[in-house]
């Protein structure tokens, strides 16, 4: 594959697409698929065939368009978006290509939900066919890779990434350029690149959407990273619970191999890189990098103390670069447009954009990409469209089980790594769950503690026993039979887990409790001292945990 050949593929694909005067895009990512978007696409295909307009009208399955709550979503080349379309609407949708739009199905796109977003990672989501490499190439895909291989040295690549200010999108926010540079300087007989797609946070589906909508972007990001650090083998560690993402990744890898973008002597250079998939098997702790490495090696996913960091001694004892899906997905646009371009977006310490999965008690649930530094209020009220059913906002939870709940006084806080950390939460991988007055914060804290207790790998005592004891205490509180002594003990355990656990899971397990204790102390007090739950959730039978 030479730059000319790539350009040729892009050109012929663009030509082929120009032949169609009309295009209908149907979302076939998991969210819309579960709202029956496949029968809808089949109906559209059938209708097009029946009318004999297949020559000029293209029906294409595309990735996530974001507004999952209103699925299945359809967009047309006239710029109209339709929501909640059914197979019965197929005829009308095709009619609208040359006539009036179907007003009862129209989903307005000039609303803040779409207008406030800035798409970099998701630029191709909802536009290209995720199962067709030519479509990705026509959208400037793999151009960054060719540029890197033919014009740049590995050091120049790392330099661009450093300049961009990109930080790890998995949650911790470690500077990506620094990580790459460490791996590139490490000495080993072989180096590895691992893509962490073990999105275990409940309430987060960004990585799944990226993999389902634009898998080639992640592969290109990994290729560029491999070239920069000198790696020759890569793994994508993806959750077995995401069958569609796995299927599309397999297709994408096969297509890239066929075009010589993966394999030996890529683009007639001496650069070799292979990617293999490894399926996770449902263990949250495997998102931790050392546990993930153990799992790729075919062992139980238990973490080990660091140092040595994986950058020095990782997979099979060799230097290993581990980045999250979204981090890799940011790489191609950074190379294409330059590090400085990326650094201009976002805030001073948190550059670029972040993809969030907005869910919970909010009008517009779905996937959004916003520039860093946007306020929580804008997220919840403008993009999210506010709380449904006239209820009152109570808290927004970020960072999953390792994060915290932020009450209304933090609504005007900008969303970036530092601000969230100061407020007692974390950026996390991008789950953002909105809660209204019908949620009891003690119950929510118990929910997360239950999660951490079940997911604790059992290797270190503070986490294994501590999460169990904390869950027991929270359970007593939600049964309205706790004493003030229990509350004091709970606070003490928070401190203990945070300071003595082996890995991130245990160290951050108390976060939901700490943040709710701080912001919703009166709710805990009401449970313990007055024996009642202000939200009316606890104490009743429906809250009983299944045995």
């Amino acid at each position, binding site marked *: 594959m030479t730059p000319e050949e790539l350009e040729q593929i892009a050109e012929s694909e663009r030509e082929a697409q120009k032949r169609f005067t009309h295009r209908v895009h149907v979302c076939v990512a*998991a969210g819309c698929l579960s709202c029956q978007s496949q029968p809808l696409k089949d109906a559209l295909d059938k209708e097009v065939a029946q009318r004999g307009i297949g020559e000029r009208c293209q029906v294409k399955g595309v990735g996530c368009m974001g507004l999952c*709550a209103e699925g299945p979503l359809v967009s047309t080349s006239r710029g109209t978006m339709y929501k909640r379309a059914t197979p019965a609407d197929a005829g009308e949708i095709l009619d609208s290509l040359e006539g009036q739009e179907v007003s009862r199905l129209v989903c307005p796109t000039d609303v803040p939900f779409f207008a406030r977003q800035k798409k970099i990672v998701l630029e191709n989501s909802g536009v290209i066919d995720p199962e067709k490499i030519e479509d990705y190439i026509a959208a400037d895909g793999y151009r960054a890779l060719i540029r890197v291989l033919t014009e740049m040295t590995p050091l120049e690549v790392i330099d661009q990434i450093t300049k961009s200010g990109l930080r790890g999108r998995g949650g911790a926010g470690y500077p990506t350029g620094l990580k790459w540079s460490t791996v590139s300087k490490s000495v080993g007989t072989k180096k590895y690149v691992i893509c962490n797609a073990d999105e275990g946070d409940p*309430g*987060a*589906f960004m990585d799944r959407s990226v993999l389902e909508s634009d898998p080639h972007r992640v592969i290109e990001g990994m290729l560029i990273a491999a070239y920069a650090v000198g790696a020759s083998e890569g793994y994508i560690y993806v959750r077995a619970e995401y069958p569609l993402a796995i299927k599309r990744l397999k297709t994408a890898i096969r297509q890239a191999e066929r075009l010589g973008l993966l394999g030996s002597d890529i683009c007639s250079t001496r650069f070799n890189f292979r990617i293999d998939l490894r399926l996770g*098997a449902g263990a949250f702790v495997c998102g931790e990098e050392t546990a993930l490495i153990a799992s790729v090696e*075919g062992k139980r996913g238990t973490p080990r103390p660091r140092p040595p960091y994986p950058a020095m001694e990782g997979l099979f004892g060799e230097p290993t670069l581990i980045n999250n899906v979204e981090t890799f997905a940011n790489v191609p646009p950074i190379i294409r447009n330059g590090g400085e371009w990326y650094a201009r977006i976002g805030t001073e310490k948190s550059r670029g954009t972040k993809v969030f999965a907005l869910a919970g*008690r909010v009008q517009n649930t779905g996937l959004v990409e916003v520039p860093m530094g946007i306020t929580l209020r804008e997220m919840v009220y403008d993009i999210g469209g506010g709380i449904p059913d006239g209820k009152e906002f109570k808290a927004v939870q970020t960072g999953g089980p390792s994060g915290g709940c932020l009450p209304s006084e933090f609504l005007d806080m900008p969303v970036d790594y530092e601000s969230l950390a100061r407020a007692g939460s974390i950026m996390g991988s991008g789950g953002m769950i909105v809660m209204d007055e019908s949620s009891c914060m003690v119950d929510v804290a118990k929910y997360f503690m239950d999660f951490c207790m079940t997911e604790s790998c059992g290797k270190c005592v503070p986490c294994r026993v501590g999460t169990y004891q904390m869950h027991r205490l929270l359970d007593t509180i939600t049964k309205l039979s706790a004493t003030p002594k229990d509350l004091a003990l709970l606070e003490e355990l928070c401190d203990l887990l945070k300071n003595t656990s082996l890995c991130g899971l245990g160290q951050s397990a108390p976060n939901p409790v700490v943040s709710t204790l701080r912001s919703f102390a009166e709710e805990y007090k009401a449970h313990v001292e007055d024996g009642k739950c202000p939200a009316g959730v606890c104490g009743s039978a429906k809250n009983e945990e299944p045995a």
Partner: protein
Amino acid sequence: MITDFAKPTPPNQDKRWRLVDATMRRLGQQSRGLIETLHTVQEAFGYLDEDALRYVAVSLRVPMSRAYGVATFYHFFTLKPAGEHTCVICTGTACYIKGAPQLVDSVQKMLHVTPGETTADGKVSVLTARCLGSCGLAPAVVYDKEVAGKVSPQTMRERLGRWVQP
């Protein structure tokens, strides 16, 4: 170095063992392929029984304890056969906030099983999942691999009713 290693024979004549053998071959018959191999076994047979674990362990030359350890460590693997149908209720945060506990409650009352169990007649297995990533459609339930969004206890009971009726 083990030199007198003979490849074990599969526990029975079932042709599905060829799939398992193919996975192990692809990964170079090495211990690092353990998890991938168990995935193949589970996909082919539905669950991991002792014979399967023993066969995989011997083939990949890992102790039985490690194979068993891995199989029980990861939630995705199951050592018991599943029912005819499976119903997976998502208990991720978004689903939890939007009513997953009521769904769990409702299924328990209806089928008299707790999550992780199969009904006595072997018809329906009820499971809970940590997060299906369908948070935009919370609460979500998977009926035999088909994801349904915005499920209410009532729609779930109707759906399950179709399975349990003779």
